[in-house]
């Protein structure tokens, strides 16, 4: 690998993260710096879009174009950005609540459209910024500020969901494993299509240190012989209890992306012909005589 023109620290902004000491998101941020550096990503050719949440503050700390948008809306903005500037490297980042609760519908349709972006979900199984309410990822039975009798709902596995919704690349990482997460981010960014990376990133404040321990215990790397193209196998690694925290690349396939489709439509629309001028367009409105 040739030396990168940019070191990880070149991607640092001078803004101090607001995160709590010990928050898993610090490590995620480091992995982002490294992945961008390793991939020689041009800062000005890159945009990182997020929603709202602790995790969604990340774009403010990366010296590329960045947009910390609204709760749940990162993916629509990212989609528009990519369609407008297909050569841009577009990353979407955010929390589990941001992407699975209020943003669930956009997640579903971005995956289905195979938008050419990488989407990193920083999953702490809780609403961090709003001080500890249950998220769709919060394990059943857990007590939170909004579920003091125990969370009544079954929790979602973001990876299982992503595969079902049609994401063409799905992986899972653990923020504590910066090296591993960095590699997964590089694969996700390099993937041609919608790449979803679920990053387990503990919330020390609302889930306590025990969360990190518990999670670490559950973590297991996906077997080397796992066939990424095998959807059913991939789903098994997300649905069966013992596999809930399997890290690595779970699923990968190739199908036309939103940008491929856009190009094809332009081609069908005029092919090599010169674009229509004003007169040609106005002819539509001439009374049919």
């Amino acid at each position, binding site marked *: 690998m040739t030396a990168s023109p940019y070191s990880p620290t070149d991607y640092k*902004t001078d*803004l101090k993260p607001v995160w709590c000491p010990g928050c898993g998101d610090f490590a995620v941020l480091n992995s982002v710096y490294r992945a961008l550096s390793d991939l020689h990503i*041009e*800062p*000005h*050719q*890159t*945009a990182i*879009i997020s929603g*709202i949440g602790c995790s969604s*503050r990340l*774009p*403010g*700390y*990366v*010296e*590329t*174009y*960045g*947009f*910390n*948008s*609204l709760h749940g*809306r990162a*993916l*629509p*903005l*990212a*989609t*528009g*950005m*990519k*369609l*407008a*500037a297909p*050569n*841009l490297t577009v990353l979407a980042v955010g929390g589990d609540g941001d992407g699975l609760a209020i943003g669930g*519908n*956009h997640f*579903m*349709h971005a995956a289905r459209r195979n938008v050419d972006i990488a989407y990193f979900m920083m999953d702490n199984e809780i609403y961090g910024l709003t001080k500890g309410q249950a998220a769709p990822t919060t394990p059943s039975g857990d007590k939170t500020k909004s579920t003091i009798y125990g969370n009544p709902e079954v929790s979602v596995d973001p990876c299982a969901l992503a595969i079902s919704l049609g994401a063409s690349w799905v992986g899972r990482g653990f923020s504590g494993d910066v090296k591993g997460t960095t590699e997964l981010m590089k694969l996700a960014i390099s993937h041609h299509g919608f790449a979803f990376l679920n990053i387990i990133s503990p919330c020390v404040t609302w889930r306590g240190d025990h969360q990190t321990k518990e999670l670490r215990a559950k973590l297991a790397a996906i077997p080397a012989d796992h066939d990424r193209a095998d959807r059913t196998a991939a789903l098994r690694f997300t649905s069966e209890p013992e596999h809930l925290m399997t890290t690595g690349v779970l699923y990968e396939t190739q199908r036309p992306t939103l940008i491929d489709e*856009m190009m094809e*439509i*332009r081609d*069908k*629309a*005029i092919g090599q012909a010169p*674009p*229509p001028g*004003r*007169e040609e*367009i*106005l002819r539509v*409105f*001439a*009374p*049919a*005589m």
Partner: protein
Amino acid sequence: MHDLTFAFVGAGGDGAVTAGDIMAGVCASEGLHVIKTEAYGPQIRGGESSATVRVSSKPVYAQADAVDVLVVFSWADFARFQNEVLLATDAVIFHESADAPPDEMSSRTCHAVPFAALAREAGAPASKNVIAVGLLTARYGLPLELTRHAISRRFAKKEAAVIEANLRAFDRGVIQEETLPQTGKEQLEYTSSEPRLLMSGNEASAFAAIHAGCRFFAGYPITPSSEILHFLSEWLPKIGGSSLQTEDELAAIGAIIGASFAGVKSMTATSGPGLALMAELLGLSSIAEVPAVIVNVQRGGPSTGIPTKSEQSDLFHAVYASHGDTPRVVIACSDVESSFHATVDAFNMAEEYQVPVIVLSDQSIAQRRETINASVLQHEVRERRMATPDDLHEYRRYRDTPDGVSPMSVPGMSGGMYQTNGLEHDEQGRPNASFNVHEAMNAKRYRKLDAIAERYPLFDRFGAKRPEVGILCWGSSIGVVREAIAHMGVEDRVGVFAPIMISPLPTHDLQSFIDSCGSLLVVEVSYAAQFTQHLRTQVDLPRAKTTVHSRSGGKTLAASEVEAELRTLLTNVSLEVLA
């Protein structure tokens, strides 16, 4: 006759709307002025329908209050359009002879025509409407050959036999006309001139977007705005742009904010329910200062309301929605031509001042087809103030400037990187929760509206210089008011001030107009009088001398409504003069 309104009413399959299309097309290519509207019953499709075509040798500004020439294929269906199809006192009616007129028609000139039978004779049983077209073409002095040609064009995709049959039907209608009693004053007097285009307000907005340089559209279908989505998803790909049908309106405005952030002029189009869903993202565009154009075609509200009919009741939401102090621009369309200009202006303002701009149209102008000359579809196009190399040196995305506009960089510009957000932020875009920064940034963002009010004090002003009665109105009501004044011939006593900029309002001109009027009449189609209340926030509208004519939508505003108000007000004035 210089000005005639034809109407066709029938059941599904009677082809009322097609008949209207053909007549409108012929008149447009004769260079006449045409306004065509349609109406449908509640049934999704295949139900009763009506088409109304106003034709005039002089410019017209609204559909006529009443119909001069009515073709009725079925009286039962006619009854369903009481609000849409009103008859002039001297209206001439051609009805299916198999269907006898109801009693209330006894006093009227009714010609029974065996449309069905004639169509069968002609071997085109489905073409009762073509018989009618032939009959009217002959009777009202429209060009036979041209119309024949229009008919064959209309059925061009069908096999020859079908075309033949329809031409026979047309000729049969022409012959039939001679058998009907003449009244003498049937001929439409005009000298044919250059053909005109036929365009709807939605089409004008869509074309305007292309003219303005819009290359990305995202939208979610909704009546009565979907034609914009249809037009742009066909044409944008041809000119190197793209269009996306999103999963909902939140995604639609989200996508255009993303595309605009990336440097591409972008637009979405919707109607009330969709605009309601966009309230939060409107605020994001405003605080992050990302240009965005939102065309909102008003329909009957509240809620799902009356999706197929017009109303002027989204003004409140357009001007005041979204939490917090959220500067945005609202500009109105009053007819097809102004739909073009307003939309281009919207892009110009959005791009130059980095604000969201809402274009308020309504069903009555968005879906009616009007004649228009290509030559008027021209409008200056302005560009975003981009960051120069100088600006990029220690770049501050939100640098506070005299007019509040900060040069903008876009992805791809090296050295232009910035990280923005919907949080309050400092000049660099860094989140900042201190009062001083918040106050300064609010001031910066609102200062842009002052600059816009300066540069775009847009309004229509016509009629008397020092009006006895001054009319305040906006949007689609303007044309109706114009017709009313002309019809009464009171141009020298009545003056009109109609803001095109709804927010910020042209306050100064507006106030001096108000002060210059003897009495005032506000005309709007909103039960809650949204326009009137909005005006009061910015100008003094003396309650004592102001009459408000505001009512629900659901039927087109009639010139006669305005005339009635004017008659009262003008006599009062006269009386005062006497006293």
